[in-house]
């Protein structure tokens, strides 16, 4: 297989629906995007729009109440959706794509030394011996900026920032080509946040890793983003290069979202979006943003397609 001609990751029409008492939650509903090696895409969206569910769908870490899970996930040209669980665990999860889950720093096992915890994925997914895995863990600690003697500590002996770095080391230890980061900095302090972003940038430079960074913090996301994908009500409504997107977003939602960000270094008056996102159980027909959209017109009653404009794609009839 010629890996050069293929994108690192290509996702087509990925769907993840949950079954609940109230009905079907369409948390991920037809997501497409692609990512090259050593690039970082940020997935931006408001709380509850399905960001974490997308991460779970990519890594096939599914809860019990899945209603529908379909689509294609090509990893260097291979559709890993065809893999059975065993193949997936061996060749994809952690081996090629690893995840730093939301609130990972609070999910560390409190009674196991952090060194052991970081070594664990290498033992499980790569089949490395314990000694070698601990050495790998030591190397990863250097990458994420945790002093080596912390290997012997327990999670409660570490500050929040340090624990987040440990969680990051856990994702790095198998040398994956892609790391999915779910809200890696949102519970952290400003300076710690900046520190972690520096660590991520350095890893990207030094190890050539790709990132999917999931966050609702638009300002911080710009620290890492090569590409930006805006998620709204289970769908991606705009994707594009960061340098195109940040100065001039296209989708009305993206424009309003960007306008709502308070800025330290400019005098702009931030705006806000009235109304609320639709419930993922009861989605409106047509464009999902239409209830809040100031540019709505007749066409918006039908579901918009992804319209391409240069390297950018927008799911809005305005760009037909």
């Amino acid at each position, binding site marked *: 297989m010629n890996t050069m001609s293929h994108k690192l990751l290509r996702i087509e029409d990925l769907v993840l629906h*949950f079954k*609940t*008492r109230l009905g079907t939650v369409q948390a991920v509903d037809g997501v497409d995007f692609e990512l090259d090696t050593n690039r970082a895409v940020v997935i931006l969206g408001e709380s509850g729009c399905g960001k974490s569910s997308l991460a779970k769908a990519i890594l096939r870490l599914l*809860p*019990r*109440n899945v209603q529908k899970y379909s689509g294609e996930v090509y990893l260097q040209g291979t559709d890993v959706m065809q893999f059975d669980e065993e193949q997936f665990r061996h060749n994809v999860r952690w081996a090629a794509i690893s995840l730093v889950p939301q609130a990972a720093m609070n999910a560390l096992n409190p009674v196991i030394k952090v060194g052991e915890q970081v070594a664990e994925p290498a033992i499980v997914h790569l089949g490395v011996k314990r000694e070698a895995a601990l050495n790998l863990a030591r190397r990863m600690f250097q990458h994420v900026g945790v002093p080596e003697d912390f290997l012997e500590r327990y999670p409660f002996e570490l500050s929040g920032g340090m624990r987040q770095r440990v969680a990051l080391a856990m994702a790095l230890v198998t040398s994956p080509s892609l790391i999915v980061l779910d809200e890696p900095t949102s519970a952290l302090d400003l300076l710690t946040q900046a520190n972690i972003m520096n660590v991520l940038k350095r890893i990207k430079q030094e190890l050539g890793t790709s990132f999917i960074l999931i966050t609702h913090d638009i300002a911080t996301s710009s620290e890492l983003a090569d590409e930006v994908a805006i998620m709204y009500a289970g769908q991606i409504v705009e994707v594009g290069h960061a340098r195109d997107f940040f100065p001039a977003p296209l989708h009305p939602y993206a424009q309003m979202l960007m306008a709502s960000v308070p800025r330290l270094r400019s005098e702009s008056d931030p705006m806000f979006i009235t109304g609320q996102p639709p419930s993922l159980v009861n989605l409106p027909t047509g464009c999902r943003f239409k209830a809040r959209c100031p540019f709505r017109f007749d066409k918006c009653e039908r579901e918009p397609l992804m319209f391409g404009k240069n390297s950018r794609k927008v799911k809005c009839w305005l760009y037909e």
Partner: protein
Amino acid sequence: MLYYPSAIVGLLVVFLLVFTAIYAMIKIPYNEAIRLWRGGEEVWYQNPKFAPPAWFNLFSSKKYSESFAVKTSDGSMTREVTPGAQGTSTMSIAYTFDFSYDYYPQELILYFTSSYEEKQPFISAEWLTPDGRKIRLVNMALSQKQTYRFSQDEKLKTRLRTEEVIPYLFSDPETGALVKGEYQLLITGAAFEPDADINVEFVSHGQVYGLAGTDQARRDLVVPLLWGAPIALAFGLIASLGTSVLTMVIAALGTWYGGWIDELIQRITEINLVLPFLSILIMIGTFYSRSIWVILGATILLSIFTGAIKSYRSIFVQVKESLYIEAARAYGASSPRIVFLYLIPRMIPLLIPGLVSSVPAFVFLEASLAVLGLGDPVLPTWGKIIEDANSNGALYRGYYYWILEPATLLMITGLGFAMLGFALDRIFNPKLRDV
């Protein structure tokens, strides 16, 4: 609610119990129930002792004889009076019944009542079997009240040359086999005064009786089984409501005010936890009073300061720190207001399932005390039935029904409340709910 089958079953059981309780109280008013329960031979003479319920026959290929009682005064036994000369009269009293059982009755009894001035009336009784034999039972003069027990007539025994009168009456003298068919009791009476009169009641103490059977005192177990329901429910509900509410209020006050109040509550709880709960109740029952109200009060008092107060406390400690309490303090809510309007309501979702689930424990407690002989001396309860059964050796004598009936009701009650409590917990505290 409808999502939970266990809730529906539990609710159904609880409804059924409540319905039974109400039915019991309407059908047999309290005073009547007490009269029946405490009544002796004079109330229950019609019933056999130790008789399993009549529906036993449904499950048995050999049929036990059912009990009956008939009398002339209400016409269930026919009586023909033929006036004779000089104010005398003869009367013929007959009762024909079909006997198609495989076991003999325990006993046959005739209760005579007669009225006369001077000369006693006279009767003679005969027994007609389906195969046409006629057995003379007795000839005797009647006093005003006279009881004739078939099995204890020594003369009859000698005449029939048997010790077992009743089997003899129902079987073929040659083969000794039981004879099924129509039997007749025939009593011919002679009264010698114009106003003299004879009435008779014919009672057959069968092998089985009624819906629930009888105990050692011939009492129909329907009475205590029915009345056990309201008593068990009242005891269980009052005890668990009293305990839960008081525990919660005390835990809330302790947590909120802290300091020595909290310390005191903790220490009392620790002491109470090592006190032997049941022994104290037994002591109260033995030395002070066995009244159900006293026991109820003691149960509640002793159950307040238990592990529950500690678990409530640990939750209150968290709730106490919650932001909405901080907000309430900031807008000037007084301490009692915070305890009763902010802390305690937060716990209601935990309280209600716990309350429902703890009902069975108290019902069982009351039953256990009764089994130990410390039940309320007046009230008919499920525990009392078990106690009576136990002290009459029901199990080794094979009277399983006597224990199984109250035990089944206790178990159903326990199960019903437990299932309902569990379901309520899942409804009120949906974290446990599986997605």
